């Protein structure tokens, strides 16, 4: 790895490197702030479907929407936690919620730098989930965490620009830690059971992945206004 991909990731528009980095970082932050004010909304593709966009920016939007989903979910759950959730449960979920918010906000900044339209402040509904008990909440959390790990693992190789790969890698392993915990809280020892990791055969020991299309189908179940991944790369 020759260059800091993460630095390049946000400073590329400045074409500054080397010992201008310190100044560049400040400039990049300023640019980000300004860019955040001037985002054009993504044009709807039809009457009621939002396009994620295309290429790398579209993939970032895809990841960004997933992080919004998680943050919205934990926010709603923690605002009215079931009575049978312990203090420890709530503490663990609160920490996870904070991680998801940080992921969400960082991705928003990354999208701004990428010059992409941003699907911000999407509205989610979790009415189809049973969130009135500990087991209901943890079951839903486990499903979402497994979903996002499978989504990240499926999408990471699709990025044309390798500068995003390390950043996504830094996030996905934390999502996997969340997922493992949700499994363990529901059923001790199920942190990497065969619902997510192949137990036998050629692919034994590998976590399953989901295609963008498969994830979008799940995601749209919880979005008030649906999104379309029609223009995202698939290979």
């Amino acid at each position, binding site marked *: 790895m020759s260059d800091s991909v993460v630095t390049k990731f946000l400073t590329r528009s400045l074409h500054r490197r080397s010992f201008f980095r310190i100044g560049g970082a400040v400039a990049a932050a300023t640019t980000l702030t300004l860019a955040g004010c001037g985002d054009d909304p993504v044009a709807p593709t039809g009457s009621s479907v939002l396009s994620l966009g295309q290429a790398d920016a579209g993939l970032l939007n895809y990841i960004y929407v997933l992080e919004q989903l998680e943050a919205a979910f934990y926010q709603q759950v923690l605002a009215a936690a079931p009575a049978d959730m312990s203090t420890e449960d709530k503490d663990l979920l609160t920490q996870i919620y904070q*991680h998801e*918010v940080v992921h969400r906000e960082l991705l928003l900044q990354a999208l701004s730098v990428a010059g992409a339209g941003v699907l911000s402040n999407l509205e989610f509904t979790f009415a189809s989930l049973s969130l009135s008990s500990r087991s209901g909440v943890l079951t839903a959390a486990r499903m979402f965490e497994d979903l996002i790990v499978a989504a990240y693992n499926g999408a990471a190789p699709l990025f044309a620009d*390798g500068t995003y790969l390390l950043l996504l890698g830094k996030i996905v392993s934390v999502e996997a830690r969340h997922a493992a*915990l949700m499994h363990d809280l529901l059923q001790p020892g199920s942190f990497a059971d065969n619902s997510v990791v192949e137990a036998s055969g050629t692919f034994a020991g590998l976590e399953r992945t989901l295609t963008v299309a498969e994830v979008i189908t799940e995601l749209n179940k919880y979005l008030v206004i649906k999104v379309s991944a029609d223009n995202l790369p698939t290979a």
Partner: protein
Amino acid sequence: MNLFNIISELEKVDPEIMDRLSHRRSALSALGSLGKKMALAAAPIAIGSAFNKAVGQNTLNTANEVLNYALLLEYLEEDFYAQALAAPTLAANLTSGSAARGAIQTIKNHETAHVNLLKAALGTNANPRPASFDFGNAFLTYPTFLTFAQAFEDTGVRAYKGQATKIQSANQPAILQTALQIHSVEARHAAHIRYMRRGAAAGGQSNIMPWVVGKEANGAPDAVYGAGNPAATFPAEDNITQATLTLTTGLGATYTAADVSAAFDEGLDNTTVTTIARSVVTF
């Protein structure tokens, strides 16, 4: 600090350092008419990262080298859990049919599967398994065993992450896909080992989270959570800066350093990982 002395010392160790620095660093060559030492002296903040980059420690050059490196780590992990499952000192905790033994067996099975996957990918290029792994006092007690396990799993996560862009730049999408799918499994293992350490049998260490908070080592070697080389690419686990943004204050709200650092796992270069492994295991 005296930069001239540092440069001079570096030149003793690495006579080509000035050439390497100037080749790698466009800014330095852009200042060609200035003496190189002057240019460096004018940029004291940059020298650390410039040097680190010039001698970057991800020394693996081909996909096969990366795969054999991963294979060595998987051999090590597999043997570690196999020895644990057979250790008389752990028998009272890893009793037949117990949740703890089930979990360790699951992890061991995954490591075996990873060994087989990597060997299959490498074919005749696969390096042989080392003759033996000596884990020293790792199996002395149940808490000791779990401390070592946490160190190996968290290091494994960092190690795979550290090779991701190398595999991608080698244009090996199938290998990258497989590595990602191993990487997240290692993260699940790490989370579970950490969760086990919270349990009463392991000392009830409820301060240990399934994720890495700051660079708290929880008894594992500090280097597992420290910076790699170059530190700009592989910062310590208490890093709160991503993509040049200081996330505690730079995202429009204030977040704690604990939450920000835990929200990201950092990568590690292969040289640092190997040094960590050899610091606790003889092989």
